[in-house]
């Protein structure tokens, strides 16, 4: 994975995440999600992005975080993985951030083990840490048979 480059950033809980914009990112808000009864708990549901079906993944559930006390998971970060569109429902969307390889470091070992699986590494920014997510693992790591 290329460690430098542009990242779309967002917050889930206290974490500050980034996914490479090379994967094809788009941000929207206020989508009406159709839930999937019996589906994996991480799957918040489906919505329609210009005629395409998007699978929305609840990042708080995915990261084993408690539900947002303030409620709405209104913001979605889109990316494509193997011909299908996914959206991450996140608390707050940050800026597009440019980073270089100098700030990169391997995943710190004191991270939540569930989150660590999904994290490629960390960029030490001036004021905070940017956790780089592996979008493919977010999708592929979901346990499909839960019910």
């Amino acid at each position, binding site marked *: 994975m290329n460690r430098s480059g542009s990242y779309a950033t967002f917050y889930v809980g206290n974490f500050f995440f980034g996914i490479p914009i090379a994967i094809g990112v788009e941000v929207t808000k206020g989508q*009406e999600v159709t839930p999937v009864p*019996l589906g994996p708990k*991480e799957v918040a549901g489906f919505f*329609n992005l210009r*005629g395409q079906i998007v699978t929305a993944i609840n990042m708080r559930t995915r990261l084993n975080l408690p539900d947002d006390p303030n409620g709405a998971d209104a913001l979605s970060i889109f990316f494509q993985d193997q011909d299908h569109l996914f959206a991450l429902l996140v608390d707050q969307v940050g800026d597009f951030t440019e980073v270089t390889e100098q700030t990169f470091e391997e995943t710190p070992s004191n991270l939540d083990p569930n989150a660590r699986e999904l994290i490629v590494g960390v960029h030490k920014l001036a004021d905070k840490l940017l956790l780089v997510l592996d979008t493919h693992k977010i999708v592929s790591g979901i346990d499909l048979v839960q019910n």
Partner: protein
Amino acid sequence: MDNNDQILDEFLLEAGEIFDQLDLDFVQLEQTPQDKKLIGNIFRAMHTLKGSSGFFAFHRLEKVAHAGESLLSKLRDGIFTLNEEMTDVLLETSDRLRAIINGVQKHRREPEGDDSALIQNLKFLTDGGVGITKIAPAPSSVPDPKLEAVIEGPQVFAEKVLESSPADLEQDLLEVVKEASIDAAVNEAESSKELAAPVKVSVELLDKLMNLVSEMVLARNRLLSFARTSGDLAFNNTVRRIDTVTLELQERMMKTRMQPISQVWSKFPRLVRDIAQDCGKKVELIQIGAETELDRTLLEGIRDPLVHIIRNSVDHGIELPSERLAKAKPELGTVKLRAFHENGMVVIEIADDGAGINIPLVRQKAIQLGLVTAERAAKLTEREIIDFIYLPGFSTKAEITNLSGRGVGMDVVRTNIQEIGGTVDIATSAQGTRLRLSIPLTLAIMPAVFVRCKQYSYAIPQVNVIEMLRYEPREGVPGVEDFYGVPVFRLRDKLIPLVFLNYELKVDPVLPPVDQTLNIVIVQAAGIRFGLVVDEVLYMQEVVVKSVGPLLKGTPVYSGSTILGDGRVALIFDINAIAVRSGIIAKLADNQFEQDISAALGANTDSQQMLMFDLLGLERMVIPLETVDRLEMIAASRIDRRGNEAVVLYGKKIMRLISLAHYVEGATQKSLYGDETVPVIVHYHHGQPVGFIVKKVHNIVNVPTQVVMVSPPQRGIMGSVIVNDSVMSILNTQEVLNLSGLGPHQEAGLAGDRYADSDVITMDREDK
């Protein structure tokens, strides 16, 4: 003939393309003679030509292509390397083939000609020879139609000369010349009328167009929902126009995806032939309805299942010729493929006239594999036994052949067919087996019924929907009942199991109370009918099916999704999966099992022997045989009266006679005359004989113990039983005895007075 013409046209088009490619390939080959891939391409091209020409019985074409193919196969396998000599001969082969094809195009039949020299050269080279004698260019390789026809004339003529007597020669000569010139003229006329060649469009482009049309349908749906609330007439008219155009566009677009099923079938004659040969059987394949069209993606889906089924038919189904003859079947077995449209589905039938599925063997195998206990297996119906063959790893073949017997057949067939929304049905007998696949025309757009559960809409594919109904609880009418743990609903006297959708989807943690209005969608899946209880039935609409993506692979309840008019996503149910998930199928199977047991246990007690008799005006009464002691015919003249009772001397006892007609509702009484003889059923009551006078005694019948109670209760009748579709009434012996004054603690013949039964006996009074 139209059909054949069309096939021929297709062949000619294909051949034209092959030659264009061949020319390019040959040129390329001269530069890179070692290119195996190129030789492979040429080889395949030759092979295709040969195959097709065999079909049309173009023997020249077939022979030349075959000879060329033989040489090419050696080149392909690296036995020879291409030299100039070979290239020459191969090029000549290509030219010759093209010339023949040109001839076919003009005459609609293969032109005559001699290819022996060319074939000989090809053979010579194939056998490793070097240095061939150059041959003169073949006459028919000249493309000018006029010239060709003229040249052909003498050839035909020459042949005729050999056959004919000299006297006919002159006439023949004239005819040949005439024919030749006519041919030439016709050819010229025809060549000016070019075939409008179809345009080849890439599948990707078609798919993309299809997607766009799908989008269009969705946009249209949204527009329609706007129009519903809008009062603007001009706007509404425009929307309606868009609606119709979209509909037509969608239909036309679907057509581009449709392809005749012959695309898949075309490989089967060869397949059947090969398998038959391997098994030492004689099998003929009959194809009916090969022009039936199916969505291209579905065609792919049915290819493998069909191959499996045909293999099974030939390998398992059709018997060896000797066996067939012994069974008085024709030596030549047939496998019949038939495709046709039915109810918006495409039905494909594969019928063989073989031995049929060996039910006892399947049963035995199922027991052997521990799938079922021997006792249970003995009670399974034929259909249930057949169901075993769908299980993975199930095969009755003793040995594995390279064709079949690995037990990976029918389960794969069923899974594949179900994946594309189809169903499989098997019927079998000693005269053969018939498989019936029902397949939807297309998967991309389908009609669906929308239902609401909580605040969300879901779609149910319309193919699964039988009917929709609303149940309102009413006093005295049985509503939802419990049947072995399955809630069931009575629909026109049939029990329909219910699935409460909210509960099944775990949206509601508990089953809702059943004494309320229920909206039920009766659906059919996996061979059973059940009712889905939903919050509301909304509307029907054509939906564009979209994938739900990889994350619902473990949630088989949904087969796809679609976008609603308001832009939201709705999930489409997989009714099969819901049936499986809800456990209805399993529970019903268990329940069937229980019924089997009770039937088996009750085999002795469940049916009871009864004597059937008639009363006047009331036929088919029965009385339990154990209560019958004897049957007597008693002459009316022998009957005496004792007070109000009619009695007869019976052995050393006095037998009280009771006219049953008097105590049984619905029967008519009849007086007896002195010379009449009446049948009497003798019953012992507390050691005393009592005679029931009846009209006629029939035979002893076996009746089920399960008694249908009559309501309101009828005097003298205990209830009804159903025997061979007719209803019989059981005599309530005790009641009759009570009524006639012979209660449980009374002695026969003594109690009558107390009841002042003046109406008991009228029969021996000759006052009528």
